[in-house]
């Protein structure tokens, strides 16, 4: 059975609880074990540090989906000033799995877009677990074209299991809506920075990740399809998802090694949710410094660079 939940922290907490009980008890009995406890504490911390520096791909998937993980709206509200959310695709609906609007980043007006997962069942029903319908992508399309009109950089935050696979989504043209956003992002004359803050799932994530700089939080993942789906399709065995997770090369480090991600933003010990403020500040810093670099370029240079960046992706043999 595949582990569905990242429970290392719970186990660690149990261990530490016991350790504290032991300390308490020894104090009461007036056993002076101060030095031993110090050594033990250090060792425990080392082991934990080591664990977090060596998470498996599957563990990172679980962390990236952790229910306490900050959502895109959390980051937006922390990082940006004057955030004004905009709604609707002007055509069919307002998709709450994708949020977008205008805001200011250190005084620079930007258009911000991102997948919105919820916390808890109610919120997740509201946001459809961050899985957009076509109207979500059409909202993105509308807002990025508007960003271009007003020469505003586009920042996207990615956190989705993927585009929603449902009858309504197919009826309203999920494929075409994603394709159109991909092409429009390629054409934009303004800087685009994307950051994978959680789960980067398939084409539904990619539709917000065509950019000039791709940042990834260190426990975030980006995958062609979910490890579960790949295991089920290729190996006809969803139970081998953990093994598949490693085979797919979907961790931030893997994606950077493949030349697709540009920068990894280190998460706090235990994951982004353990110290949201530090995490958000680091993300903000990276967005600001990357944006400043990109703003120094002429728009045609920028567009040409993005084109080259995309055009060269892929490995094959020729002869």
């Amino acid at each position, binding site marked *: 059975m595949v582990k569905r939940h990242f429970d290392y922290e719970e186990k660690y907490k149990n261990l530490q609880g016991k350790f504290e009980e032991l300390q308490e008890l020894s104090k009461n009995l007036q056993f002076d074990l101060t030095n031993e406890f110090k050594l033990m504490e250090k060792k425990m911390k080392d082991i934990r540090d080591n664990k977090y520096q060596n998470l498996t791909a599957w563990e990172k998937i679980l962390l990236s989906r952790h229910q306490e993980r900050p959502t895109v709206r959390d980051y937006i509200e922390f990082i940006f000033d004057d955030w004004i959310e905009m709604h609707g695709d002007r055509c069919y609906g307002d998709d709450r799995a994708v949020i977008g609007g205008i805001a200011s980043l250190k005084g620079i007006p930007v258009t911000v877009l991102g997948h919105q997962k919820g916390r808890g069942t109610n919120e997740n029903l509201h946001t459809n677990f961050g899985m957009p319908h076509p109207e979500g992508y059409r909202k993105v399309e509308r807002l990025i074209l508007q960003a271009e009109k007003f020469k505003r950089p586009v920042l996207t935050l990615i956190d989705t299991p993927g585009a929603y696979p*449902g009858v309504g989504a197919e009826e*309203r043209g*999920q494929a075409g809506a994603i394709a159109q956003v*991909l092409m429009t992002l390629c054409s934009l004359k303004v800087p685009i920075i994307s950051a994978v803050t959680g789960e980067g799932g398939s084409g539904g994530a*990619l539709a917000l990740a065509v950019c000039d700089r791709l940042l990834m939080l260190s426990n975030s993942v980006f995958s062609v399809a979910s490890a579960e789906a790949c295991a089920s399709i290729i190996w006809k065995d969803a139970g081998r998802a953990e093994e598949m997770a490693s085979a797919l090369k*979907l961790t931030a480090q893997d994606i950077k090694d493949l030349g697709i991600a540009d920068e990894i933003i280190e998460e706090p010990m235990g994951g982004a949710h353990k110290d949201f403020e530090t995490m958000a500040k680091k993300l903000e810093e990276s967005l600001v410094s990357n944006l400043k670099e990109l703003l120094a370029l002429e728009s045609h240079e920028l567009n040409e660079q993005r084109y080259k960046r995309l055009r060269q992706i892929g490995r094959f043999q020729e002869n």
Partner: protein
Amino acid sequence: MLKSAFGKQKLIPIPDSREYMQSTEKDVGREKCPSCSRRVSELELKENHKVCPECQYHFSMTAWERIHFMADPDTFQEFNSDLRSINILDFPGYDEKLESAMKQTGLKEALVTGQCTIGGYPVILGTMDSRFMMASMGSVAGEKVCRAVEKAIDLKIPLILCTASGGARMQEGMLSLMQMAKTSAVLDRFHQQGLLYMTLLTNPTTGGVSASFASLADIILAEPGALIGFAGPRVIKQTISEILPADFQKAEFMLKHGMVDKIVNRLVLKDTVESLLRLHLGGKNG
């Protein structure tokens, strides 16, 4: 409509080239029509461009069958036939799958691209072959699409891609997903040149291919009955556990929902494509 279009139909001669023979090696025997269950002889099928004479069911065409059907005889010149996939991720079993697909199809990849004329008009033509690992798109398919697009830009001629695909090639991980962005990027440049891009969606066109270059054409044609969509029907059934509409994700469903310009019976396809080329390029051979 179909009736009057039939009136204009010309027979398209199919040359006996080596590749074509290779791809239809089971020339003897009969095939059972999956739609009406009639057993159709291979010869009959071949003469009817693999359309069931009884119920008009469109059997899949291989990449080369499609090329011989679409291109004017002896005009097709293949591009980049030496491009081959590599197992960059060391993905377990990928090498073996590639090898067996190559053996089965005689192709090096699921996509064949090249230049030819159709009705006398020079075009860039690409066709996909679903026998080759479900025509999933990896680095090679993405690269071949891009080079075909770039060639069309160079020559300022129309681009026609006949799609069929199960989606991204998972064995290449994110490199395969990124081919969606890469092909969209070159198509953006293509459209900026004011050139004509048409796709023919054949059974099945789904996943990363449908959510990138297949949907980015000026004119989107589809073959009758072709499965077209983003998510596969199996995945959707799992997700929603509802009964799907009868014609769900069929070309006819997609037409009704506004995603396809026209469903074209294969028996009038070449005429339709020629008319479209003429309307975009002016007088014949002009």
